[in-house]
């Protein structure tokens, strides 16, 4: 992938983000923030790449592993906590009536 192509990807991704988020009711801002936050843990892919390409370089393996741990902490924790919040909303209609 050439650098220019990656820049296009960056631009279109940003526009997509602006478009998707535009119309969210305030109720969902905290869950949305937490969900988006979990997605930002996508750096786990970069950490994985680092580990795979380390080729026996132990310090690099350790850095990659720690990085992976941090990212997954973000991803797993983020999705779980978002689910917990949203479970409270969705429980309502079925319980009430």
């Amino acid at each position, binding site marked *: *992938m050439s*650098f220019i192509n*990656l820049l296009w*990807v*960056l631009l279109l*991704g*940003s526009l*997509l*983000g602006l478009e*998707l*988020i535009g119309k*969210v009711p*305030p*109720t969902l*801002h*905290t*869950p*949305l*923030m937490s*969900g*988006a*936050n*979990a*997605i*930002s843990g*996508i*750096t*786990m*892919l*970069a*950490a*994985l790449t680092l580990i795979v390409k380390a*080729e026996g370089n132990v*310090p*690099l*393996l350790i*850095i*990659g592993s*720690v*990085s*992976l*741990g*941090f*990212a*997954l*902490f*973000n991803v*797993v*924790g983020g*999705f779980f*906590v978002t*689910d*917990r919040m949203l*479970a*409270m*909303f969705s*429980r*309502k*209609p079925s*319980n009430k009536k």
Partner: protein
Amino acid sequence: MNLPEIIKFVIDLIAVLLLALGIKGLSKVKSARDANRLAAFAMSLSVIGLLSYYLGTSGIAIQSWIWIIIGTIIGSLFGAILAKRVPMTSMPETVALFNGCGGMSSLLVALGVAIFPISNSLENLDFFKSLINEVSISVSIFVGAITFTGSIVAMAKLQGWLSTPRWTQSKVRHFVNIVFAVASLIAILDLINGNTSSIWLLVVVSSLLGIGVTLPIGGADMPVVISLLNSYSGIAAAAAGFVVDSQLLIVAGAMVGAAGLILTQVMCKGMNRSLVSVLFGGSLSAQSKVSSGSGEYTNITSCSVEECALTLEAANKVIIVPGYGLAVAQAQHTLREVTKKLEQNGIEVVYAIHPVAGRMPGHMNVLLAEADVPYEQLKEMDIVNPDFPATDVVLVLGANDVVNPQAKNDSSSPLYGMPVLDVQEARTVFVIKRGMSAGYSGIKNDLFDLPNTSMVFGDAKKVLNDLIGELKDLGVGDK
């Protein structure tokens, strides 16, 4: 393109599509939960795509597997445990902590690539020596470090572990932060010049910059900062995407970055603060002490729980204004008990939710939902404001600045222009509060002085419990 490349390409494409659908779905109450799971599924899919690609091309060494498994288990375990245990009231600081760790992850990836250039990379031999690569490494470290230290400081402040040091309110802090920023820039230029050792300077000064920028910001503005840092962590992820040449990372990072910015903007609007004043204005309470000489209360009416219960019993329409104080007292369930009783007596009950009630937009909705309050009873400010004149009783529970009429009437007030709930229009207002202390803004609340306002002093939970008892004695809600 060979087969593994094609497979990875297709999986990445699906993952991006699902992530976008996930974020979109999170914007509707009905679809939000499924959308969150969809996004989580997309993330897992992207991992499978990446691993299968390497298995199909270079293969993955046993040693790599071991480190992958170690990192995965430890990170996921701690994340899951924290997510399950943390109380709903500390959501903002939890999001801050997760967010900081995302930033840290991006930082470490860039650091690893910078210190140990991966010379036998399959894609491109001299990719890691290129200028673009140095720039993306620098951005990833710079933004990642700010995200990490900034989020940790934000978390510590929200938890009350850290107060705002006095010196950070003076002008000196701008000078200090400018020094950090300039030092970061010098380190980045030096790094691009080929001097790898300056990377450590960059790590240190950008970390300090993150602390220096976040530390002076007062508790009231923290949600805005967390939202902004959330956006930064997306940018850091996108930068890491440039470092390891991954479109998926760039798309996802950019989406989160853009989403965070929008959310930050929404929060600023709700609090009548500009982003610039949040970031550089220092703590609001420190300002207001200088600008408006708070003044004394002259006409406070305090009343007993019994009186409050009597008035409630005679009401036709009651509006509840919940604030962070309610959440701190963990009284949302008790409140629900009270409103159930009122509803059983045929009294119309509505909850008025200010856009920044609690500590984040939507935080209060989450807390009330936890207490089984029907979603339809939660009314947003613009919808509920015209209803106040036709309302008999307003119960203000642990809210303060968001019901301060100064924001409408007093142009010299720092709150002036902030959208507020017009509770003073109602016939009677009860403010349940522990004492006369000011809200986040540190500003006197004119509402408390009004003739139709009565203060009920006490802890929200205790007062509500007493209220249940009184209502029972009056025969309200008995079937």
